[in-house]
């Protein structure tokens, strides 16, 4: 079997092995490639940054462990950014797999910034029924979530003495693995006139561009690349977010090396496969001619 036929009939397990090596390698020995930023992510950053200190931010972390590598770094950076600006953070999840991830992130970051639960942030927990929950939040946050994730009554919390519903919040960020972005736009952001941004998986990012163009989303962060961009923007403006241990930002940047390597591998293998495809086609044509 010659090289061309070999490539065209390559066992997919060989491709799997190459991908595995290329993902693992840069994670163990980082290449530290510089990450450039896109306008879509820059506009999320500047929107959150431009709010006066102490604004109220509603963060919806609607994802579960399967999309943790793509979206969890974004949650970390967003929380770090909010606390850096002394924003009040209202965080919740519409996905049953989400609470453990949010708890981990919000406890870790708030501890580093010395922020108090109930005063500077509140983790409302999980509730089923996407649109019903978001609709409820536009009426009353404490009505929809009488207790927070830690089973404490929300009505008495200092954070909810000023804020009653989503419309009292100054910004909404939906970190979404599924189709919850539409729900937040349709039931909270648009009717209540609260600006919002979305961070979603790379697969679904392309789908939200119409909303971005229509101005219904200030910005879109797609997948790990978007999270890495946000990390870079954050670390540029607030160098100390990186200082503490464990550091709260910069995880996605590490992942970008691996992603670069795999993308490059796929691109090169597609080109190789196409060259072989053309050679094989040419041979076939010649064979037909001689026949």
């Amino acid at each position: 079997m010659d090289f061309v036929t070999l490539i065209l009939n390559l066992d997919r397990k060989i491709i799997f092995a190459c991908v595995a090596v290329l993902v693992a390698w840069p994670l163990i020995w980082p290449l530290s490639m510089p990450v450039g930023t896109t306008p879509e992510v820059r506009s999320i950053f500047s929107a959150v940054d431009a709010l006066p200190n102490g604004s109220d931010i509603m963060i919806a972390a609607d994802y579960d462990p399967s999309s943790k590598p793509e979206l969890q770094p974004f949650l970390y950076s967003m929380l770090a950014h909010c606390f850096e600006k002394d924003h009040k953070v209202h965080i919740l999840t519409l996905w049953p797999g989400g609470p453990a991830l949010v708890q981990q992130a919000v406890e870790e970051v708030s501890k580093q910034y010395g922020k108090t639960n109930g005063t500077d942030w509140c983790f409302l927990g999980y509730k089923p029924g996407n649109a019903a929950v978001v609709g409820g939040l536009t009426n009353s946050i404490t009505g929809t979530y009488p207790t927070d994730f830690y089973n404490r009554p929300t009505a008495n919390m200092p954070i909810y003495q000023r804020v009653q519903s989503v419309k009292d919040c100054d910004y909404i960020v939906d970190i979404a693995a599924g189709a919850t972005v539409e729900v937040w736009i349709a039931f909270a952001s648009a009717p209540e006139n609260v600006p919002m941004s979305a961070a979603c998986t790379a697969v679904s990012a392309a789908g939200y561009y119409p909303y971005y163009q229509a101005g219904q989303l200030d910005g879109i962060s797609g997948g790990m690349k978007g999270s890495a961009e946000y990390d870079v923007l954050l670390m540029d403006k607030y160098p100390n977010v990186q200082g503490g241990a464990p550091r709260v930002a910069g995880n996605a940047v590490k992942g970008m090396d691996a992603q670069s390597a795999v993308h490059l591998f796929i691109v090169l293998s597609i080109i190789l496969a196409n060259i072989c495809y053309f050679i094989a086609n040419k041979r076939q044509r010649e064979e037909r001619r001689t026949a």
Partner: protein
Amino acid sequence: MIFLKRQLPIIIAFVAGIMMWIRYYIPSEVSTNLVDGYLEWVRIIVGFAAILGILSLLQHHMLKIRMKRPGFAFSYVTIAAFIMMTAAGFLPFAFPGFAEKNMETGSLFNWLYEYTFIPMQATMFSVLAFFIASAAFRAFRARSMEATLLLVAAIIMMVGRVPIGDLISNATPAFMIGQNEYHLIDFEEWTGWLLNVPNAAAKRGILLGVYLSQIAISIRIIFGIERTYMGGGD
């Protein structure tokens, strides 16, 4: 009998459909309560349907074991896992080595969820990366003009969404048009254009078609023209 099986469901679909449509335009408490009530009913029915699902699951796997169909050993695993999770969630005491009973933090159920279920789920999702690589390798061939366009767009996207794209762009010669600096090859700019122009346009087109179709299928169902979903055939 034919009334219960044919006419009654169509009447229910018609009345409920028209009612839910009209209430959309009426901003009163009654209409909000109507939706809330409807959603509650859905939740109740789905709750009971879960029992049907469990029965179907067990029946299917029991039959597989009894008939010794290929892979019947996995059915034992399924049934064992089902019994274990159910017991962990329902039994009113804390299992040895665990602080809590039922589904609370620190219980066996919670431990199983966090340390077996979540990692397995993450594994399934990560398989996606491998499958994308092999599917791209196999399927992206420049067979026709359209396929070539798709191929080129895919390559630009893949390179443009990672830092290596910036490195390549910055290495190419730059020139000035007016106040702006442009690179000969600029993956970031190109991916932005692909996402914002052709992608957004195509998505809008598809969505408009989908929404119109949904209106049409809703009308067909409300007026009883489409009845296949009731198992009624034509």
